[in-house]
């Protein structure tokens, strides 16, 4: 008898509906309205790469030791340097970082002895072309500048 009544009054369905109904209240909304609402990115997030510069004189911190390039499993970092005849040190000339092949594992960041290379919280890496995904030294030092497109 009870089972028949439960069946007739759709108890099992109403039970489920009640769960859905409970979460209707606007304060229970958890969806992030992304472009309007910026997500909170964790401090350790591994996103867009950055090549740090000395904030006082704008010189790069990189000592061209090539360790990041050796640590990278995808071999996508190319460090171009030249020996300075006066100081007998290596000067950084170019630095390319191909984000299209990067898997953001953080091994390069861990390998850098002077914390010059860093993966930052920036996560918007889309670009209009494949070439746009290859970061040169300027982009790495100054960050991604949003491009203006004129139609």
């Amino acid at each position: 008898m009870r089972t028949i009544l439960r069946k007739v009054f759709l108890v099992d369905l109403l039970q489920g509906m009640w769960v859905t109904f409970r979460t209707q209240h606007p304060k229970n909304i958890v969806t992030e309205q992304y472009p309007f609402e910026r997500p909170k990115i964790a401090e350790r997030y591994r996103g867009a790469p950055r090549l740090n510069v000395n904030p006082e004189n704008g010189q790069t911190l990189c000592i061209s030791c090539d360790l990041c390039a050796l640590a990278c499993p995808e071999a996508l970092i190319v460090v171009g340097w030249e020996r300075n005849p006066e100081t007998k040190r290596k000067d950084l000339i170019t630095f390319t970082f191909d984000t299209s092949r990067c898997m953001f594992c953080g091994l390069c960041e861990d390998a850098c002895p002077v914390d010059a290379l860093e993966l930052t919280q920036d996560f918007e890496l889309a670009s209009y072309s494949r070439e746009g995904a290859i970061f040169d030294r300027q982009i790495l030092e100054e960050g991604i500048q949003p491009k203006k497109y004129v139609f």
Partner: protein
Amino acid sequence: MAETFLDSTELVLNMGPQHPSTHGVLRVIVKLDGEKVLGTECVIGYLHRGVEKIAENRTYTMFAPYVDRIDYIAAVSNGLGYCLAVEKLLNVEAPARAQAIRVILTELNRIGSHLLWLGTHALDIGAITPLFYCMREREYTLDIFEKYCGARLTTHAFRIGGLQYETYEGFEKECLAFCDLFLPKVDEYEELLTGNRIWRKRLIDVGILNEADCKAFGVTGPMLRAAGCKWDIRKALPYCGYEKYDFEIPTRENGDTYDRYMVRMQEMRQSARIIRQAVEGLPAGPITAKVPKVIKPPVGEAYVSIEAPKGELGYYIVSDGTTQPYRCRVRPPSFVNLQALDKMARGSLVADLVAIIGTIDIVLGEVDR
């Protein structure tokens, strides 16, 4: 048999690789008699990336991020299996603190994986709402991963010999808060599904796989436990200090789709229990063992298997004494479990086939590697 225009003929159809309920790019060739499935055959390999071959060209440290991409839903478990295998080759053991943190993260990952399974499985059967709720709770586990190691899905959280990162401030509190929040939510999913008559009718006695068949196919994980076999590598061959934690292995008898659902629901509760114990007893101390900078294991081989969310995940690594593995073989649970599909699906209806594919809990990155 007299031939009339009403006679049905057998029909061979392709299901997938773009079918939404094959959970990726699985292609199943089905032979049908009307609605009835006469036989199935899986065509796999659409997502093949040659991970095992890549291992032979990378150093041990470099290969660690790739294993996350084998089963991207349970990246942490994969990382753990690989690190344990290399540690066994090197004959080192991670310190107690690192082991406890590894347990916490893998159990969180198990919950996340089961939640994704539950959501998509329910979606296949026709219940849309659970997916939203599952995603809502999974988000908490992903947030913990993001704060801990900086990535949400392909985490690369563990390193050979221990961990790269110390826990962040508030890690323990967040894990405990998640356990508190999560248990009532499991009851909520059960309220939505367990008693629901459509859910029961669609699942009970569908895709039965008994214990003997499970063993014959090498099926492991929740599928094996749903058939009544109490086999869990966390208990049988404890790793990472699982022997210290008090938890149960949920089992059921029938081995049908409904039982597998019940086993996984129970497993999520048990995982929350393990997380709580691990967080409360989190020891202090170092997080990495002494491992050389350049990892060069002695000549030899090692096999380590762990209990991944989907079953037994094994890593077999052969070292020839250089910095790169000579061979790295992955024993993926989804790939082995998928072999039982034909056995389960034969004689069922097409709609049940969807339920059966869902209940295996495959992830195609792992099947194809």
